[in-house]
């Protein structure tokens, strides 16, 4: 069963000129269709300007589509008051997505409170520890600030914050592109474990088809706001049908010695 389906999603951004006059528009998404099955990892791959981040923001209702609809559990999504959004996002830049003035404990307390609809003061430390356990950070101090952590640890905190809201879907927008290769592998493995152990479906966005291919069950290839190719991950990697997909695969550096 699909937990989320996007139908014919289009997004126009109006470019504002001098004194707010309209000087044209950018078509960020042009009729994008996709499905996320339960327990699946959908990989979205494309280069800068392909519209992949806009799609992620639309899934999380951070942007409204110009036309088209998002269908959660076979119902058109309108949003429910006082309830956390079913899709939660992990952002690209772990340095910019955590409030530098909040302690890690307070940040997660807020998130747990929003997810469980309990007042912040009623959230117990156990609940926060449990969230941190999910991302392998059980031993950190709750009174530390984001700057005291490394990039990889910050990205773990970003994932913990998203998980604290009990999402139905985790949306990761380039979660590893700001990280070193060795740390990148740790975060990829963490996302893979969250998906396989908790059964939370994931939308995983990256510009690197190599990274996407390691983790996704299906892949959506985007270029200039359109879907170029969509299907089973192994099929797309082994026998890509679109020329653009082949180009992306050919661009992967090949180690001649291995």
């Amino acid at each position, binding site marked *: 069963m699909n937990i989320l389906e996007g139908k014919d999603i289009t997004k126009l951004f109006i470019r504002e000129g001098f004194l707010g006059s309209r000087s044209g528009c950018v078509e960020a998404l042009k009729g994008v269709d996709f499905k996320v099955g339960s327990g699946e990892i959908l990989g979205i791959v494309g*280069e*800068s300007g392909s519209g992949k981040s806009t799609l992620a923001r639309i899934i999380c209702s951070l942007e409204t589509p110009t036309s088209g609809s998002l269908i959660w559990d076979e119902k058109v999504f309108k949003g429910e008051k006082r309830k956390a959004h079913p899709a939660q996002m992990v952002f690209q830049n772990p340095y910019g997505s955590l409030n530098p003035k909040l302690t890690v404990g307070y940040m997660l307390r807020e998130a747990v409170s929003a997810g469980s609809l309990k007042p912040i003061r009623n959230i117990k430390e156990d609940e926060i520890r449990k969230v941190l356990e999910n991302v392998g950070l059980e031993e950190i101090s709750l009174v530390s600030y984001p700057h005291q952590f*490394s*990039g*990889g*640890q910050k990205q773990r905190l970003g994932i913990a914050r998203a998980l604290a809201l009990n999402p139905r879907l985790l949306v990761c927008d380039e979660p590893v592109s700001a990280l*070193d*290769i*060795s*740390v*990148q*592998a*740790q975060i*990829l*493995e963490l996302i*893979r474990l969250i998906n396989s152990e908790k059964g939370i479906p994931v939308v995983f966005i990256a*510009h*690197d*088809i*190599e*990274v996407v*291919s*390691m*983790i996704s069950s299906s892949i959506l290839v985007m270029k200039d706001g359109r879907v170029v190719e969509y299907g089973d*991950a*192994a099929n797309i*990697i*082994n026998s890509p049908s679109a020329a653009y997909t082949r*180009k*992306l*695969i*050919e*661009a*992967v*550096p*090949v*180690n*001649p*010695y*291995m």
Partner: protein
Amino acid sequence: MSEKQSMPSGCILEGEKLSAEYFSAGKNIPVLKEVDISLKERECIGIAGESGCGKSTLALSLLRLIDEDEGRVFGGNIFFREKKHEEIINIAAVDKHRLLKVRGKEISLVTQDPYTSFNPVIKLYRQFREAYSVHNPGFEEKDFFLRVSSLLESVNLYPPEKILQSYPHQLSGGMLQRASLAMALLNEPRILIADEPTSSLDVTIQKKIMETLKNLRSLYNLSIIFISHDLNLISEIADRVYVLYAGKVVETAPSAEFFKDPYHPYSAVLLKSLPKLGARGRIASIPGRAPQPGAIKKGCAFAPRCSYADGECFRNEPPLTRSGEREWACLKGK
């Protein structure tokens, strides 16, 4: 500083026991510790390591580009064989005047982000012209234009007139990075230092830049120091690999041997954690994270993350072992 009369034949640049540190809040933060590095004529060496391991600092140190207020390079020598007189100079010790004759002329640098390496409010023409005029006083406008056109052509930027009349923001990241490669080669340097030249670019653009770099290398007989955190990228171009960890070289080997059989456990896990197209299932990674250079005072800096480490590794710092062209610093390795 010592003067050196001879270098191994074919060797063009040799860094000897280079140490570097940055000043921060009244403290000296060590970054490089006694790094030895050598580059042969027409050779390309790759320098790999995680962020904070000192690989960019090494690039800056070789040209003495670290700001005097921010840090210093000390205790080592950087020998460079000058083409003109076949004379060996010590970059670490020469005066400013002599240094300026080497920088940008004999050795040039391409950095990670092309948008910050160009001045955003000056057209490319004037920026190229300035770089040319510094080393060619009293030049003819015609010679300059011929040189620039042929370089822009070799990095696939057409037409040169139009490119030169653009501001940096009018070019895409990939085009601008190619322009900065052209600028680096303006004065026919013999060594090009490329510090993560593709990491801010899209993958298809990355491929083009790598092809351009390989093309330039054979066209102009360049020696290249290629710095990257991505060993797959390094494998495409480098003849030899240096692996840096916490400010020290932990392994050096010719590429063909290194990628088949890394001797240092850190190199081995670094290779295992590289992404592989279509490889599903458990993703291997290195536990923990790289320490700051100098943070681990005793024993091997990699020991806390190493699966082979025992008591000895935590007590004694491993010396560099040498065998043929390979060097590694591990008590447990080969």
